[in-house]
């Protein structure tokens, strides 16, 4: 079971979109039921990070996270999406 943290400024707006898009992507790639996601504010990343395998943040993440943090901007702009999806798959295979 992979634990994925999804962050944005408020934990309610763009992280909600990111959550949905990443869930769809993971399910399409056969990971349904093999991950758990939680949304949070970007300011909570450092404190929460030790309980997660990796994090995807749509806003600039503070230094000091104890898990890898991927930039979620491509989920919103559509630019650079392939690279992000590859990075997510890599994290899932770890």
């Amino acid at each position: 079971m992979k634990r994925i943290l999804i962050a944005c400024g408020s934990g309610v707006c763009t992280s909600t979109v990111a959550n949905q898009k990443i869930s769809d992507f993971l399910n399409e790639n056969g990971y349904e039921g093999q991950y758990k996601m939680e949304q949070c504010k970007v300011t909570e990343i450092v404190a929460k990070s030790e309980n997660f395998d990796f994090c995807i943040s749509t806003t600039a993440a503070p230094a000091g996270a104890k898990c890898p943090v991927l930039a979620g901007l491509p989920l919103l702009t559509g630019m650079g999406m392939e690279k992000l999806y590859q990075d997510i798959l890599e994290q899932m295979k770890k």
Partner: protein
Amino acid sequence: MKKIIGKADKNYLAVSLSGENDKEILGQMADVMFQEGYVNEGFHNAIIRREENFPTGLPTGEINVAIPHTDPEYVNRPAVCLGILDSPVKFNVMGMENETVLVSVLFMLAIKKKEDQLGLLQKLIATCQDQEMLKVIQSGDKKKIDEVLGELVK
């Protein structure tokens, strides 16, 4: 600032406007949302402060967009305000420190609960990734804008 669409019962409105910088644009749009009763008095300052800390410019292609929003405590009723800029204004890019983007179209969001907003947010992001759609919006075509915004808040 010119109001293109604004009906209180629809939960969306559209304005065309100009400003020197992102703060001026955000302030004007926040004020019109306050006048329409969608947000409370604190929204104006909150959305500007929020944009400073967590910018929302999205480099989406020829037409770039921004999706300013802030915490639910400043929101009375969920709504979307479309802002079409007479000339592009520099915004900071979401999640990228020291990167800027020239924005022509804004969707200012008044969000109350994330569970209720998922459909809106998904459709909004799809719209932001659709340059053809953004061109139609930017042209100021009232009927089309009404359709697009109506679909977003449905």
